[in-house]
């Protein structure tokens, strides 16, 4: 599935997609997805430093 995803990105994305970051980072964060304005904010908790 990711092979196809990356193929699409390579052809059409606004820049070179070099990787995928999953829940192992997002588990420390709060993500606000503002679809109307095209803005996403991810705040990462300080507990990530203790890992």
């Amino acid at each position, binding site marked *: 599935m*990711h092979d196809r995803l990356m193929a699409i990105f390579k052809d059409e994305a*606004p820049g070179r*997609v070099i990787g995928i970051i999953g*829940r192992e980072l997002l588990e420390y964060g*709060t993500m606000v997805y503002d679809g109307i304005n095209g803005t996403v904010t991810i*705040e990462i*908790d300080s507990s990530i430093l203790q890992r």
Partner: protein
Amino acid sequence: MTTEFRITIKTTRDLLKKFGVLGGGWIASPSTPMNEIAQKGVKGLFFFDDGALGTSIDASVAAELGLKPDGRHEVQGFNTASNEDHYTVKIVVAAEHVPTGTKNAGFSREIKRSHGHQKHARPPHGYFQG
């Protein structure tokens, strides 16, 4: 929650709908000092994917950095499974370090068991630094 880093992605409604959450950063070999990441690392976009457990890097990046795999791991996708290479890399994500107000600080994560063929990986060991 105490916010340590803030990643802000500003794009357009259409691009966000089409591609999802793409944020800037670098991938480098794990021995690369933070102040040399921009020169020695590979710059690009990361797809923030809450449908993925771990971290993946594109195989072309591993080749470009001259990395050698340090193991293999069975990865699972949607109705698929395969064995893929692992690489140890340093990933830097562009972010604000909130306690100091430092903009464009970037924070890094050294991935011990990442891999390079566009597949999932088990949760890696690593660390972050501001």
